[in-house]
């Protein structure tokens, strides 16, 4: 019988109990939250289990929520079961200062560069990653640009007057 969101939720709750919280289904995709330490275990379970078989990692990214103190950076994993055509998403939250999350690149090779990109933009350290260095930005950059506190524009450019572009300047 076809895999549905309820079956996935049931099996996950049986295995992990109430460590997995915040079950939602925005726009039809099952979403839940797991504690930071369990991300690899949850993914391993989703990979190995006979009925679940989520063996394709579609996406891995991070989101910065500056208002949630203590849990600012969310890692979002989207996995896909190709045979039964079901996608689910789960999130883990981690602190902005001490961002350490277990890497999933041993399970999915696709996660290797996606985690490097997340490190480059948000500063999330992946424990056990084979080659965690910056991928998109210049190696000498010393901040993590996609966090909300940093501006989009390069602050050292001299030819573009922010006032003319409608931001900052004397009219703020």
């Amino acid at each position: 019988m076809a895999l549905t969101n309820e079956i996935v939720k049931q099996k996950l709750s049986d295995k992990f109990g109430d460590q997995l919280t915040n079950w939602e289904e925005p726009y039809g995709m099952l979403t839940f939250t797991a504690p930071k330490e369990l991300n690899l275990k949850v993914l391993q379970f989703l990979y190995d289990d006979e009925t679940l078989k989520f063996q394709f990692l579609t996406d891995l990214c991070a989101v910065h929520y500056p208002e949630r103190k203590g849990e600012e950076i969310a890692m979002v994993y989207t996995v896909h079961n190709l045979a039964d055509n079901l996608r689910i998403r789960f999130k883990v939250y981690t602190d902005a200062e001490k961002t350490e999350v277990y890497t999933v690149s041993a399970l999915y090779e696709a996660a290797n560069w996606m985690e490097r990109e997340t490190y480059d933009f948000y500063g999330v350290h992946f424990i056990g990653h084979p080659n965690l260095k910056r991928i998109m930005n210049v190696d000498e950059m010393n901040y993590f640009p996609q966090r909300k506190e940093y501006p989009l524009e390069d602050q050292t450019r001299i030819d573009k007057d922010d006032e003319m572009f409608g931001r900052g300047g004397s009219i703020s």
Partner: protein
Amino acid sequence: MSNLAHQHIGLPKGSIEKQTTTLNLGPTHPATHGVFQNIIELDGERIVSAEQTVGYIHRAFEKLAERRPLYQITTITDRLNYCSSPINNMGWHMTCEKLLHIKTPKRVDYLRVIIMELSRITDHLICNSIVGVDSGAYTGFLYVMQYRELAYEIYEEVCGSRLTTNMGRIGGFERNFTDTAFQKLEKFLKEFPKGWKEFENLFTRNRIFMDRLIGTGAISAERALNYGFTGPNLRAAGVDYDVRVHSPYSSYEDFDFTVPVGKTGDNYDRFLVRGEEVWQSLSIIEQAYKKVQEFKGTEADVYHADVPEYYLPEKKDVYTKMEALIWHFKIIMGEIDMPKGEVYHSVEGANGELGFYLISDGGRTPYRLHFRRPSFIYYQAYSELTKGAMLSDAIMTMSSLNLIAGELDG
């Protein structure tokens, strides 16, 4: 296949005892399509290991998207896979429609299918002809670029621009397709099959081309799935995963087409899969065109969904009705009502599954927009694909993977 490829030419005794040579296939190289760097360790002509460096054209799309309201993001989605930008635009509009719970009418869906398949054809056209150029055959590229010009003329009729099209609006298109656009489409449908047949005659059973590509850059289906391959690269490895079939969008379930699948996942299979997908896309365009012509009378004037909150109302309504004026103002200023939520939508781009992960917090711009870029994900596998291969095979692998630098770095 000659067996010279399997002989290992060792260095003569007494020569320099250095083990491997480091070669920098640098960011600017005629064979790299766009700017990415490979640092290759060579043992004679054979590659021992390769390390890729990307980010030479990082334009910070995701942070840029946090600054712009939904309509202004279409222009940056253009520049992701710029060989087939209408697909990116349509994918983005469909993501917004999913977020805003908008359902598009059938005629809009069929028109979108025509445009998306046309851009898929143009992308495969470029990829396959550049595989030819990289193996030394420039003629095929010149022959097929003529047909890309025909496709550009069709885009110009629809949206005004050739390459970075910014085509369509949330809910449909900005104007109805004119008669001229359909005439140009008919011209394309008549002339292109001959041109593509000519191109295939030059390459597909060409002894030199086959010797160059068969057996190089192969990957098994399990490794390809683990690496997150999608699109023609995955289908050449044997897995028939196509987003148009698995999660149909824009009424793709109404069309009858097959998905070509390869066997070994090597460069030749990728070339053939793309070539066959062009024929399938042509058949889809013909079916869609027939279906569009079945709409008669007032139904033939439908080119957008009836959602005045998100799609600019007609000017005559703006000047006379109050709500239309308010919506017009809100849309132009970017203050449309966005519901809170997160949505993931993906389309079958020409090189793989292009996904948009949009988190909205009710403000005027997205809270977070992440692009799942297929080129980025499958370029990781390049070091595995070229391990033990000759240097010239590595060049062919790079060009047959269809890497688009704009999408790689984003």
